[in-house]
């Protein structure tokens, strides 16, 4: 057995170029597949994470009929039974109450439909704070609001400046901010005798208040003027066009709905517990009074988008692997024919065919493993680099992605299953391609093969 392994290993290096070519084709197949898969899954994970964190939670509990009507009249009072369940279930990391309603916001001559959201600021943690581009975060006691950047721009609350990074002759970099700039700069262009190396648009607040009008609880009219504390650029482009955020107490006061909440977002400590936690929650509350939804149900469109994009990605990968698979098969067929006589000699000398098949299989396995290992080792640093430094899309590409409702960024996924699944696919491809020599050896005629 040892000698057969030795033969298999040394055979790899008999025709170094061919082996390296075959190994390289596997390395590149895995590299491309892992990168493609990692960026697709990364985008899906990011889109799901954003939706869960900002909008729905893993599970959302709401008053009966609220999801369909979106009317504050279908919101509910704080219920001890529900919150006691949320406090005591170990699968639940945290739960946050929100109150939301639709209204209009206005500054000067500009008015826009608005999604008003009241939240428990401290319990939300960093979810909104980290997306503030100008100004500061609100608190549970302040009467200020945060506004989505696109809405703020529409209402002329902000203007955009151009920030340039300029390279000096001594290679150091300085930043230059140009207010209300309308010229189109390009990277590499000279500005004030310095080379532009980076261009960014930066919002600047030019107004600090906003009027919000809406329908309050049980027919009350709601209208108030609020101080704008900050502008947010949330990773949900649709939200940026219409969101105004305030603390829940301010929101309840605005809507004349003291003690009322519309939704409770429930966050789990493990995604895989979604089904069980939903079932447990449904079993513990009065379903005549509440609706319980999983994020997947609330965001069916996103699930379908991901599913459809995933399928196209898989078809592309299938084609990639088909090409690589035929390449591998071609190499194996060539190798088998080149060595037909050698195989015949070994069988003539007394090597049983199953042992010869074992040797050839091991040889192919060595190639597959070398290729897989190489592919994974090369892809790991690349994937981790893009995981830590996600690709941010600019201009038209960014717009087209944001039009789909996704953040214009490609964060790579580091999920181990990507590496494992790609390796398994390559091993399966090799196993299938290896059937050819096995079939040939099993059925070859020793005499004919000895003649060469």
């Amino acid at each position, binding site marked *: 057995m040892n000698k057969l392994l*030795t033969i298999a290993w040394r055979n790899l290096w008999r025709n170094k170029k061919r082996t390296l070519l075959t190994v390289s084709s596997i390395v590149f197949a895995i590299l491309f597949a892992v990168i493609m898969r990692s960026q697709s899954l990364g985008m899906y994970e990011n889109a799901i994470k954003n939706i869960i964190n900002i909008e729905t939670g893993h599970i959302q509990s709401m008053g009966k009929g609220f999801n369909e009507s979106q009317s504050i009249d279908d919101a509910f009072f704080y219920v001890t039974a529900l919150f006691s369940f949320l406090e005591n279930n170990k699968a639940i990391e945290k739960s946050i109450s929100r109150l939301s309603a639709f209204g209009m916001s206005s500054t000067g001559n500009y008015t826009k439909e608005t999604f008003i959201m009241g939240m428990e600021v401290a319990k939300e943690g960093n979810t909104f704070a980290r997306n503030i581009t100008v100004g500061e975060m609100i608190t549970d006691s302040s009467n200020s609001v945060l506004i989505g950047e696109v809405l703020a721009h529409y209402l002329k609350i902000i203007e955009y400046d151009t920030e340039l990074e300029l390279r000096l002759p001594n290679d150091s970099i300085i930043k230059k901010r140009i207010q209300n700039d309308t010229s189109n700069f390009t990277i590499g262009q000279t500005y004030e005798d310095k080379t532009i190396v980076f261009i960014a648009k930066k919002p600047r607040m030019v107004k600090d208040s906003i009027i919000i009008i809406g329908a309050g609880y049980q027919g009350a009219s709601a209208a108030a003027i609020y101080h704008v504390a900050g502008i947010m650029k949330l990773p949900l482009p649709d939200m940026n066009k219409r969101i105004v955020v305030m603390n829940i107490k301010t929101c309840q006061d605005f809507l004349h709905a003291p003690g009322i909440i519309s939704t409770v977002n429930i966050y789990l400590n493990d995604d895989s517990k979604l089904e069980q936690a939903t079932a447990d929650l449904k079993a513990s509350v009065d379903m005549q009074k509440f609706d319980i939804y999983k994020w997947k149900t609330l965001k069916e469109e996103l699930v379908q988008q991901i599913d459809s994009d995933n399928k196209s990605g898989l078809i592309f990968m299938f084609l990639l692997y088909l090409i690589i698979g035929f390449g591998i098969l071609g190499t194996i067929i060539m190798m088998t024919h080149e060595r037909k006589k*050698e195989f015949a000699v070994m*069988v003539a*000398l*007394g090597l049983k*065919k199953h042992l010869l098949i074992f040797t050839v299989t091991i040889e192919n396995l060595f190639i597959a493993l070398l290729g897989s290992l190489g592919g994974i080792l090369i892809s790991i640093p690349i994937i981790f680099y893009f995981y830590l430094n996600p690709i941010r899309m600019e201009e038209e590409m960014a717009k087209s992605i944001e039009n789909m409702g996704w953040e214009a960024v490609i964060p790579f996924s580091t999920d181990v299953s990507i590496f494992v699944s790609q390796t398994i696919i390559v091993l399966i491809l090799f196993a299938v391609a290896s059937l050819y020599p096995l079939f040939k050896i099993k059925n070859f005629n020793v*005499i004919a093969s000895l003649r060469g």
Partner: protein
Amino acid sequence: MIVIDVKNIHKTYQGVVPVHAVRGIDLTVKEGEFAAIVGPSGSGKTTFLNILGGLDTPTEGDIVVNNTNLSSLKASQLIDFRLHNIGFVFQAYNLIPVLTAQENVEFIMQLQGKSKQERSKRSVELLNAVGLSDKLNVRPGKLSGGQQQRVAVARALASKPKFILADEPTANLDSDSTSNLLSIMERLNKEENITFIFSTHDQRVVNKAHRVITIDDGKIVSDINNL
């Protein structure tokens, strides 16, 4: 002691026109013989040699080697039989290119399940016997044709076979290598009583053979004691 007993074997290749490669050969080979099979191209000697070596099966007739009728063996049993009873020397040497000279010789013994110690001892002895004690760790690609054929002879002897079949063993060798190889085979035959049967076109080989069997048109046309 009779090593090979061939009884009226025929071999016909079926096709649009059937080809009768062997047409009723009877032959007995005793232990220690040094026999050459000669004949023109297409006479059927290679087919006959393949049948003797258990690589091909006769259409009709029996071939008994060391009391075993090869016709009764299945393909996998034939492989096992060859491993323990027959040594092969091919015209093109056919050593395993990725193994050294010593590993090539050991390979057969390893298939037989011999211990590492025994394999190592015998391979060194055999390579020494064919004059290649200084080439143990050299791979075939770095050996001359004559040296490769001597390794092939050592490999054929490694399994302690009942006889060695050599198909045109000197066809690719120059005259020095041919006479060197012949003297080695002759010595092994004389000193260790090893049975050699070889097909050849080479008159130098024929001259050294103790028995010359001539095949033509699938039949033995002469069987001469050449001593």
